[in-house]
């Protein structure tokens, strides 16, 4: 593979990369990489293809410097394209020299319905290298909030309600069981934090072939097919799986039936993994003591449905779980790794298996 590579690789950077990040990419092989920052150059396409999502962004957009002809020529000559999020959809057919598309995000579901899906040119993601830590902290924070009744307190104290009898049942976290659906980058961080709180941690993982104990920070790791066995053990359940054909709607009526009475569901992955009608029913029935959702169906384009947002004991945030005061953006590191591997002719990291779905 390495022998077929051109002497100079054009690395087109659509991601909003800092000077430092650009320098880091260049430093992988200064004599062989031509790093081309191009965030502003494709912004009109990005906005056009992601109109609703881009509306959330403030401030005037930076102006392009290239003519349309320059843009097409540069794209056609690009060997590696470092995508933005959101990203322009109609690149693959125009990037005729492309050897790799690299995404700064973890989930492949973002590519659904775009020409990247099923691409013959390898697409790598930053799975395991994005906002896993802040997302995990939020998931564990939500478990603690429900355990300590702070979801009720935040409302009651502002309303001046200090009736001690109105405070919800409070639970000790120590010794309780937290289940992680999808023990990946976020899930292993959730497991570590929950263990730090003295909790027992169980998990499922797509690639786990058989039940294993004391694995990757979990007390018990179940194959995905044994999801309901795992759910039956859990006081708190964190959805941290990829959204794939296999996981879509997997937390449905059967899964809720398998859960303990009074369990708490937390979703920091994708809304489509949870059957929202079944969730709403479980909350109304009191089967669940609470649900925290950072994600819900179609959250990039719509607010949560009234049924969902008005269910008892639900707390929803508008897909903000990755926010932090500290940078956790290691997607450039994954790109640098892959550039090294590309130059050395080695297999690339985190390349999407379109059949598996991540």
């Amino acid at each position, binding site marked *: 593979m390495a022998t077929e590579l051109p002497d100079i690789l054009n690395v087109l950077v659509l991601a909003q990369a800092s000077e430092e990040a650009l320098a880091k990419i260049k430093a992988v092989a200064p004599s062989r990489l031509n790093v081309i920052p191009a965030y502003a150059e494709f912004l009109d396409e990005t906005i056009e293809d992601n109109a609703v999502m881009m509306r959330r962004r403030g401030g005037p957009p930076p102006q392009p410097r290239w003519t349309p002809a320059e843009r097409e020529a540069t794209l056609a000559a690009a060997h590696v394209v470092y995508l933005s999020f959101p990203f322009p959809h109609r690149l693959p057919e125009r990037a005729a020299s492309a050897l790799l598309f690299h995404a700064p995000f973890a989930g492949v579901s973002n590519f659904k319905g775009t020409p990247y899906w099923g691409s013959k040119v390898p697409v790598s993601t930053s799975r395991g290298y994005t906002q896993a830590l802040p997302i995990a902290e939020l998931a564990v*924070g939500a478990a603690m909030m429900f*355990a300590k009744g*702070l979801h009720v307190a*935040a409302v009651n104290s502002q309303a001046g309600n200090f009736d001690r009898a109105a405070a919800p049942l*409070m639970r000790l976290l120590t010794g309780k069981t937290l289940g992680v659906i999808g023990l990946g980058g976020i899930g292993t961080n959730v497991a570590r934090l929950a263990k730090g709180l003295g909790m027992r941690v169980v998990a499922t993982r797509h690639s786990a072939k058989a039940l294993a104990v004391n694995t990757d920070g979990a007390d018990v790791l179940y194959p995905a097919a044994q999801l309901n066995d795992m759910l039956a053990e859990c006081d708190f359940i964190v959805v941290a799986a990829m959204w794939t054909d296999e996981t879509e709607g997997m937390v449905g009526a059967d899964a809720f039936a398998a859960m303990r009475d009074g369990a708490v569901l937390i979703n920091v992955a994708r809304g489509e993994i949870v059957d929202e009608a079944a969730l709403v029913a479980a909350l109304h029935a009191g089967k669940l003591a609470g649900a*925290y959702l950072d994600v819900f169906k179609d959250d990039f384009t719509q607010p*949560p449905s009234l049924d969902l*947002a008005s269910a008892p004991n639900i707390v929803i*945030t508008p897909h903000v779980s990755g926010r932090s005061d500290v940078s956790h953006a290691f997607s450039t590191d994954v790109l640098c790794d892959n550039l090294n591997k590309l130059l050395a002719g080695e297999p690339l990291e985190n390349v999407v298996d379109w059949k598996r779905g991540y």
Partner: protein
Amino acid sequence: MTLGLPDHINVVVIRDEPEEALGRIRAIAPGRITVTPLWHSLLDELRAQWPPDLVDRFNRTKPTGDEPKGEALNQVLAEAHVALGSFPFPRDLRSRMPGAQWVHWGFAGISNLRPSDFWGSDVVCTSSRGYTGALPIAESALAGALMHARKLDVGVRQTGTREFDAKGYEMTVVDGKTMGIIGLGGIGRHLARLAKGVGMRVVATRRSTPARVENTEGVDVLYPAAQFHDMLAECDFVVVAAMWTPETEGMVDADAFAAMRNGAYLINIARGEIIDEPAMAGALASGKLSGAYLDVYADEFNVPPPAALTSHPHVVMTPHVSQRADVNHIFGLDNFCSNLERLLKGEEMENVINWERGY
């Protein structure tokens, strides 16, 4: 300590414990201990002796139907050597357990025993002082820190109004941040362990610490109370976990807020009187404090909380419930089991009640 225990020990459990708890006691000396649960046998008596709704709050498991009743119950009590009790309990228990050698009580303060024939009795009694509420309180304090760091209070309130706006979620991570604990006692030690468990740096003050010490008792730095302001200057989250004494009253005052980092969060799970509330309201209004989680406020049994606190968008308050938990009783069980092990090895038991001292 060696009591006059026989080779085979009859233990009665007079509070509601699940089967696994009974198994844990039996496992301490298999074959040497007979454990008989008597909660459901005594429930009707307890309802007659104490406010019945209060008794029912402690009733968690279902009866099996095999519980000894009447004469059989009295026979089991008469033959018992050791008891594990808590609130509520039969007020005439001492006279019905003539062979009693030791009773462990799962509560911290023994004023509960005053209206019973155990008060001042010759039977060795131990308590769970120092173990009852510290862990759930510490968990509540950390929950308050995470709620603020991850802006879950904003999520709760946006969900309430169903007006979702991604602005307003200026989140921080707790990983690598510094938590300062004012008063490193029973609560503070649990809190330090939990905060370390989620990746935080932990500093603390303690009244009895003569000089600044690093890496001690589960904290990165332990300061004497006199260097309180030095500690505050390091903290992203400040937790009040001290006793309310003349020395601590109002100690978190305007000078203390001035010493804190801009944007710090304050958590109080101790007593409201330790904080100067007008100074806190000022610090919240100026943005010096980003927010607060308060389980207590000054004079909380007599007056409502100050509006300047309850109306602030990033203040969350609870009505003095941070100690509540579904499994408080396990602490009493831990103390009982460790004391039983000590007793069988001939060692001194912990928390032996001194009736004169009163705890």
